[in-house]
């Protein structure tokens, strides 16, 4: 048989030579046409705990990355995202969604101001066309640097110590959601204090051709600090604990929604805090202003599924509670009394909180913190309902994240 044409294969990231050598489990996951490790070891527990107790090194290169440059860069971005970019200082990073004209979320990502007229925007989906279309009349260029820029997330309590070992830059002075240029073993990088884990952590952006030496430098310096390559399974648990939503899982991007009902506004996704209606008009602002006045029908909230309730359901069939061993990403009905009042979209057993948690879209009538609802659980092939309490997110929010 002929081998598959290499163009037809999923791509490895610029770190593939390193990650594939370590991927004992051969558990690979697809991400934007690339393959990345689902887990490196046969079980992902240790990778998860590295995020929370030492440091995890995560390849996040498949993110889409756009370089937006020009005298109107800030003005242009202020038109397209919901956050206020005019107040974004050099070296600052904003987490922001962006919306269509109806105020429904298209995508979300981080926006880093690298210079007076230079920004880098990350996104989960390709957004080049949409950015181009909106750039009409602005003196900006939008460049897709997804391929030429590789990225590593170094996340966890010892991540700062590790960076200190490899760079002279003032890592200690880098505040939450700030970024700076630096050199790691003479390799030029940008380090931002950002991440998808809700923990102390950094993301390191590097030209793809320097990816491998950067990986090697971090792994070597990180040894004594417990650095552990971690895959998507571990990351998924951490991001749910941090209450961070995931596109295509917790919401459908507006551009891909086949019906209106699938779309969500930032208010409905718990991102109301990112909507700066007083900054002047931007894409979707009219609709968002209206929603803000009238209130939203839905809210994305946390659920804590009560252990005692699970125990009772499982005791009926003679078992202790069976917990998911990895995070789930399916839509699960949530009830208030006899009626369905929402649906959970991701959930997991939180090993650090020792709680079963989920993210759920709830009707605003049932979204208040402390409300008791019921989430569907399948116990031995039968649909049951476990009692759950509506909570605010993040579920886990350590001080070190910001300090």
């Amino acid at each position: 048989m002929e081998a598959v044409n290499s163009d037809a294969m999923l791509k490895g990231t610029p770190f593939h030579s390193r990650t594939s050598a370590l991927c004992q489990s051969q558990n690979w996951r697809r991400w934007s046409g690339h393959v990345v490790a689902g887990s490196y070891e046969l079980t992902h527990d240790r990778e998860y705990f590295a995020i929370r107790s030492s440091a995890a090194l995560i390849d996040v290169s498949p993110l889409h990355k756009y370089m937006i440059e020009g005298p109107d860069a800030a003005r242009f971005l202020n038109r397209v995202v919901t956050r206020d970019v005019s107040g974004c200082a050099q070296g600052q990073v904003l987490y922001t969604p962006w919306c269509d004209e109806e105020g429904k979320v298209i995508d979300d990502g981080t926006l880093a101001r690298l210079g007076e007229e230079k920004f880098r925007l990350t996104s989960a989906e390709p957004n080049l066309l949409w950015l181009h279309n909106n750039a009409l009349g602005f003196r900006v260029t939008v460049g897709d640097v997804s391929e030429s820029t590789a990225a590593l997330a170094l996340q966890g309590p010892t991540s700062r110590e590790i960076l200190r070992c490899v760079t002279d830059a003032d890592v200690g002075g880098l505040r939450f959601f700030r970024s700076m240029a630096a050199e790691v073993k003479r390799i030029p990088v940008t380090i931002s204090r950002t991440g998808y884990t809700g923990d102390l952590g950094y993301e390191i952006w590097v030209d793809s051709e320097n990816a491998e030496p950067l990986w090697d430098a971090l792994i070597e310096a990180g040894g004594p600090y417990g650095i552990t390559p971690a895959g998507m399974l571990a990351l998924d648990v951490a991001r749910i604990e941090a209450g961070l939503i995931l596109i295509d899982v917790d919401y459908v991007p507006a551009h891909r929604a086949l019906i209106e009902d699938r779309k969500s506004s930032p208010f409905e996704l718990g991102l109301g805090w990112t909507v700066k209606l007083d900054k002047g008009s931007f894409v979707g602002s009219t609709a968002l202003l209206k929603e803000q006045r009238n209130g939203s029908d839905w809210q994305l909230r946390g659920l804590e599924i009560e252990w005692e309730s699970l125990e009772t359901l499982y005791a009926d069939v003679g078992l202790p509670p069976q917990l998911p061993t990895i995070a789930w990403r399916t839509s699960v009905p949530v009830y208030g009394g006899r009626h369905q009042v929402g649906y959970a979209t991701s959930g997991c057993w939180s090993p650090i909180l020792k709680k079963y948690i989920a993210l759920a879209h709830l009707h605003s009538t049932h979204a208040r913190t402390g409300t008791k609802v019921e989430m569907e659980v399948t116990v031995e092939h039968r649909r049951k309902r476990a009692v759950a309490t509506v909570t605010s997110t993040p579920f886990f929010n350590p001080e070190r994240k910001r300090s």
Partner: protein
Amino acid sequence: MSYSAHYDAIVIGGGHNGLVNAAYLARAGKSVLVLERRHLVGGAAVTEEIYPGFKYSVYSYVVSLLRPEIIRELDLPSHGLEILPLESTVTPLPNGDYLGRWADHDQTRRELYRHSAKDAEAYDDYGKLMYHLAFAVKPIVAMVPPDPTSLSPRDLLSLLKLGKHFRSLGATQFYALVKLMTMSAADFLDEWFETQALKATMSASGIIGTFLGPRSPGTAYVLLHHYLGEIDGSFRAWGFAKGGTGAISESIAGAARRFGADIRTEASVARVLVRHGRATGVALENGDEITARVVVSGLDPKRTFLKLIESEHLPDDFVDSIRRFKIRGSSGKVNLSLSELPKFTCLPRDGPHLRGAISISPSVDYLERAYDDAKYGNFSRRPYMDIIIPSMIDPGMAPPGKHVMSIFVQYAPSDLEGGWNETRREAFGDAVIDTLAQYAPNLPGAILHRQVITPWDLERDIGLTQGNIFHGELSLHQLFFLRPAPSWADYRTPLDNFYQCGSGTHPGGGISGTSGRLAALRVLKDWK
């Protein structure tokens, strides 16, 4: 800090059970004072930096039984509790080979297969049975023992009648449970496996903290305890607390303080104040007297009833049974600061085995011989050891690139022939290092600091009578409604307003917090 003169409750001893007890009482709105003799709380669950830069989990070193409901109800994660998985157990063998059990099921099976194809399959069946049995006994562990008078306490098997649970067990499981209650760990495992190192390493869990050998009847039951953690939503049977075992105590103390409890260290209680058959407070070593409506003791039964209370206040038969309560110590501990990782001959490269447990238990004979030494009043010349390298799990335990090693050792009898002293303590330490050097020859040269702990030290330093790590042996005649004494297994005592909450009560030793919690619930129920 200021202390009000009168409290709703005083808890004697800031071990983890005392702290759990105080936290629950404070959570219910009571004013609570914890009095701890040492300069830090935690008792047998402490982390101390004895050699600068190196942190030892001085005594207790792994956790499996800490109750999930306590973690949730006291919100311990918000007070810093993090339990990291310990994924493997490796037993180095004298012939340079090893037996490993890993986090991944298939990997373990392949490894067992290398030693015995039969054992590789039996291991799964065994695991399934233990899982069922653990599920069956779990309600007992989590409940206050019922009034035993309707049962015959002499008939230990009447334990089995408890709960409709047992009726639902199939015949195979029922007989297995009876066997577990009565057999020795070695005999029980002989029915399942043929690989010596596997049987020895598994049976070791049945002898920890007891003055028994793997061939002593009654040791099989403790095998079950290892499966209890697994069915409680903690996923892994064994874990290591980030920051060392002391972090568990600190997190509980943090919760207790948040609920308003006062915790006083360097406050040794000399005596419980008694008036008209009821406890009214305590007198400290320094002469201070503090009154309270309720007094709870977290010390072991002997200390509680024979030292803190004048015997005239207690019924004679009760005092007798406390005197008879078996509390011989048999365990020691060696903590090391290391300049480099040990290189085990069987697995010379750094690898996952250094992040799990390493068990020196090559065969059942080896363990039994170690016990023989102790039976006749000596420490084991070739002891059983359960080893972890905490700095490999939590790098914060030692300076970067350096390591700490925790070695739990058996046997070190409390009543050593001729008595313990400093010289004999170090001789015991030497036996441990010599034995280990046979498996990891670079170890002796890597030692920067060594701390050796014998039952003698346990008694002097943290007040464990005879150095018994569980406040009394976990043998069947001292469990459940017999712990610590018949009729007084419900945390109450013959003295009104005086309760007990330490490991000497049901369900027994280990870092579980259950005694502390159940005792608090009992106190609160009685409060009206």
